[in-house]
């Protein structure tokens, strides 16, 4: 299940979409709107997407995951429009036969989507300033970093 949505994401829908009796592990990753960027107060985020490419990119990244985790069941959704603090901007639900593969799959998907999904984010600060903010290609922290 791959979706872009202009309205609030129903996280349970994506969780339920991947649940299966063949899977003993299920994880849901939620990206949410944080109240600051590097300490600067954020009021809201605005997301813009390129649907004709975003949905194929979600499918492609899932196909790449299936090379190493062929039994992984995946649902991905991303919001568009203006989001208030705390709102869910992205959901990645993944179910696998065992827990190790589930952690690996969830991590693989979020990092690949951060790098390649054609979605853009505008940070709107409380002081009225706003700018389009790209993901940092080098900000893929390994275990041990915050």
């Amino acid at each position, binding site marked *: 299940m791959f979706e872009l949505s202009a309205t609030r994401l129903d996280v349970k829908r994506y969780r339920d979409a991947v649940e299966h009796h063949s899977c003993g592990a299920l994880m849901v990753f939620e990206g949410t709107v944080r109240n600051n960027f590097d300490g600067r107060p954020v009021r809201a985020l605005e997301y813009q997407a*390129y649907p004709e*490419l975003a949905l194929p990119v979600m499918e492609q990244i899932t196909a790449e995951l299936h090379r190493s985790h062929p039994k992984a069941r995946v649902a991905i959704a991303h919001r568009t429009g203006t989001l208030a603090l705390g709102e869910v901007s992205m959901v990645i639900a993944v179910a696998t036969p065992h827990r190790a593969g589930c952690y690996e799959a969830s991590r693989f998907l979020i990092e690949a989507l951060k790098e390649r*999904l054609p*979605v853009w*984010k*505008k940070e709107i600060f409380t002081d009225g300033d706003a700018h389009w*903010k790209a993901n940092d290609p080098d900000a893929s922290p390994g275990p041990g970093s915050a």
Partner: protein
Amino acid sequence: MPNETIQVTLKTFAQLRELRGVDSEELELPSQTSVAQLFERVFGEGPLAKLPVAFALNHALVPPTTLLSDGDTLALLPPVGGG
């Protein structure tokens, strides 16, 4: 056919879209124009001339040297920020 021109639909996103003021526009270009040359032509003199963009031709990523054809849709993709 050196004088031939082509019609291309240009889609932009994020800061590129704000600069143009529209999300999509029709452009008439000389044939043999590459996707990178289109970016240069539209944004080369402006504040986003140095933005590292990617190119999607008819909704598939292509290299900068790819030549445009009549009726193509080209999307200019700034560095992404989803998640």
